[in-house]
């Protein structure tokens, strides 16, 4: 038993120290900043910073946009990747080329691809050519509300593959008999996919949603590359707020915003995990 204990320490220690030093201790230690005024006397102000920040229009704007963008991105990736995964899993060949094509963008550095996106979404660019071909007027993609489209597209392009691969892994363990049965019943593709396949891979679907959401919260890179520190108010994200306050050296507000957001993230995922747990129980109970 002693030997075992020693090895626990041996295995755990290096990683644990790193996590503690570079993640947990700073994270907990930072709370202090969010509770003081950062002035000469560095007074303890309780939750005053939190009260202030929730009254700051830019913070709430950033939060709203971040939430909206992630609510747009995450479900989109969730659904599209599922459809693609089902299509891929139905192929008789291995579909290696398609898998590569889907996953490749995940490894591409966002910044290196930026110019291409700017060309594609230019006012006279290829996307607007398609738009006019469909009989609509050109859209100014790089300003205002429409700017969300390139941001979402860039996100989708990059993150689709990873979700597809996770789905594929799950789909391959679905017994063949289910499909056969469904086909005999005469169910169509989407019927089959969503009412038979999806429930069978619920835990995976949940994980994909979580991952997609997490990555959607990290959408800042795309926004920053297109819009800079002060992009159009429609795509000004919470990370813009935090980065800008950071460059104004206002650590109080950065940490306050960070913890406010962390709490929201925890609540959202707490609820999601709870729901998933209930669903899993329900499935098992049948």
């Amino acid at each position, binding site marked *: 038993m002693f030997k075992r204990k020693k090895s626990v320490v041996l295995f755990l220690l290096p990683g644990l120290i790193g996590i503690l030093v570079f993640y947990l201790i700073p994270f907990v230690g930072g709370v202090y900043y969010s509770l003081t005024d*950062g*002035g*000469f006397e*560095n007074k303890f102000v309780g939750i005053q910073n939190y009260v202030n920040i929730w009254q*700051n*229009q*830019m913070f709430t704007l950033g939060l709203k946009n971040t939430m909206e963008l992630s609510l747009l991105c995450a479900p989109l990736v969730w659904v599209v990747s599922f459809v693609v995964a089902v299509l891929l899993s139905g192929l008789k060949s291995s579909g290696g080329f398609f898998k590569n094509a889907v996953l490749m963008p995940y490894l591409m550095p966002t910044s290196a691809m930026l110019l291409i996106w700017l060309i594609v979404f230019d006012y006279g660019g290829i996307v607007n050519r398609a738009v006019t071909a469909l009989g609509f007027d050109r859209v100014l993609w790089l300003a205002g509300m429409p700017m969300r489209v390139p941001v979402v597209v860039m996100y989708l392009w990059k993150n689709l593959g990873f979700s597809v691969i996770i789905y594929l892994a799950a789909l391959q363990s679905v017994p063949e008999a289910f499909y056969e049965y469904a086909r005999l019943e005469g169910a169509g593709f989407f019927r089959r996919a969503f009412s038979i396949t999806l429930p069978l891979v619920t835990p995976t679907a949940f994980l994909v949603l979580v991952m997609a959401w997490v990555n959607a919260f990290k959408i800042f890179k795309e926004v920053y590359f297109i*819009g*800079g*520190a*002060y992009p159009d*108010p429609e795509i*000004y994200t919470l990370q813009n*707020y935090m980065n*800008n*306050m950071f*460059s*104004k*050296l*206002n*650590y109080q*507000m950065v940490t306050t915003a960070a913890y406010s957001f962390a709490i929201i993230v925890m609540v959202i995922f707490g609820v999601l995990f709870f729901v998933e747990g209930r669903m899993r129980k329900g499935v098992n109970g049948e």
Partner: protein
Amino acid sequence: MNGKRILALILGALLAFGATGAMAATGDAVIVSRDTDGYNISTAAVVGEDIYLYTWNAILRYSLADGQMTEYARASEGAYLNHIFSARGQLYGLVEDWKEDETIEAKVYEIAMEGDTYTLTGEPIVLDWSKMSGQSRDGYMYTRSYENILVVDDFLYVLSIDDSYESTALMEFSLKDGACRVIFENSNIRGVLPYKDGQFLAVMGVGEHFWSAELALATFDLASGATTKVADMNIGSNNLLGIAYDIERDWLLYVTGGQIYRVEGLDMSTARIVNNMPILDSSTLTSLGRLLPGDRYLLYDYENVYIRNINPSQLPERTLKIKGYAEANAAYRAFSDAHPETSVIVDNTYSGSAGDDLINAMMARDSSVDVYLLGLSSREYGALSERGFLQELTDPAIVEEVGKLYPVVQEALTSNGKLVAVPYEIRSDSVFGYNKSVLEKLGLTEEQLPKTWSQMIELLARWGDEYQTDFPELSPLDPSYLAEIRRRLMNMILENYMKGMDAGEMRFDTPILRDTLKKLEEADFSAIEIEESEDGYSWDGDTVLFTDWAQVGLTDWGSSSYEVTWPLAFEEGADASVSMELNVMVINPFSENKDLAEEYLKYVMQNMKISMRTSLDPNQNEPYREVGYEVNRREAQRYFESLKKSRDSAAEEDKKMYDETIAEYEKYLAEYEDRWAASAEDIANYREMAKTLTINRYSPMQSGNEEIIALINRFSDGQMPVEGFVSAMDQKLRMMQMEGY
């Protein structure tokens, strides 16, 4: 401005007489200082108890024994030197002669003092200078610059650098036959010193760049060429200056962060501070310090020569630490003289963006620095002011002195109604100016010049049709600007517009800005076609009507006679606003020496440079001369005398030529009386302009902001209408303001 400054310094380097040096109790002294004595220092050499300083025109001898300074003027034109050094207990001068085939002949002479002049004596040793020139990458010939001049036995050693700072070579010249040997070539070597047993000590940069911050100490064997690393210097990103080695006691001395350190036996763990050294850190190579008899140490920069006691037992009890890039000027000297009990440490290590560090230091209630130097418009000052991290100044003398300044300046020095800063440096922003001679050539008068930006745009648009055919050689603006004239104008207009405004009240959607931009949008500049000269830089003072770098403020060295400052307004009849950049000193609120710090700031206020005092204080209207005026004038007079002497002894056929020169010089000397860095008229003009003076404050909307540049470019390239532009600017501004600080 830089060019002008250098010019002024070279002019200022035209000669001299006896300087004064106060010796404090510990033996610390500033023996020469440019802003009081008017000298620039080229090199120093120590012979016995005498310190020789070469000022480009004269040699000063400072006697350590009695503290007396004697000046030896250059006896003849031929006695111009590049450097002086001591060898075999004798003073030598190094002269670089440019020969007709563009090569350099380097000669070493003995220097002799006779009466109040110095002369070069004897047959020179001609040094083999062939290895000092090289070919740069683009094919030009260059000569290597060199520093770190030292002599060991019969050899002169210098460190020379190529034009791209990629190779530093230690070169050895024989003082017998002038033979040259490249001993060592390395991109990282920063300084060398003689060490014991035929070895050298070398300061090396660790890493691949010349500029790499980490420095290490190595020994270098002259015979075998082997280097052995001895220790890391561990001085972080600070620069290293003034290295010196005492062979007898095995002491290494060096200066970093404004203090002198002493190390015993090359063991860095023994490093201890022995005194302060407020030298300006601006050299590429590590400069050499000199050890003097009686535990003293000499180090100099371009403007000041310092002697410091290096016996730590005599260190003053108290220290006052000042951080920021500043010269140790009159205030420093006056304070030091009045407070021998206090050692003033001026840490002028340049640190890029010290902002985060500063805020961190404040949050950690750090008291290690007493006085900070900051730009008033910097992000750091903005943050400190916003959060009340600035100590209020209550000393009546400071309050009184500040009370004399322009109200806008007083206002800028306060934060939340409290006086918190004193100015120590001033820079006026550049504005438009016109060239008098070009104006005359065009047959125009000042009345016909544009007074507003709109009129300027109109003039530029008309230029092609109106003036180009008649005056093809003249250009309205620097020809290199014309290629992207719209962007250039746009930048100038916006910068000028924003400068005059308080960040909190700033708006872009105003009729005056909209009208001006509309003009710019509609103007057609295509008719202007100025041929650029072959080298691409065709700027020539007498062909360009407008410059955009004219100065508003008054300077130490005066303004040029042909350029007239001509700031533009936004509206007809309105005054053009002019702005200034202030660098200030503030006291760390956590300092444990607040009393001393405030005392220091009092000296800063009381010893303000005359140019700055006149710029900031509306009641200071005395005309003043440039720094070193007396020295220059004396030198000119002396040269005049020598010309006359030469004439008398010249051959008959040359006399006429001499007479012409003498007549010209006489006129020049006569004009000397009217040479003012700021004449009464200059000051009156300035007072007129200063009616709309503003001091730059921190604003997130500064023109360097990336997004603003993008917007400006979109507008200038015709991709954005005026309305779109101003509303986009206002939107960004609102976002910045709403975020808060």
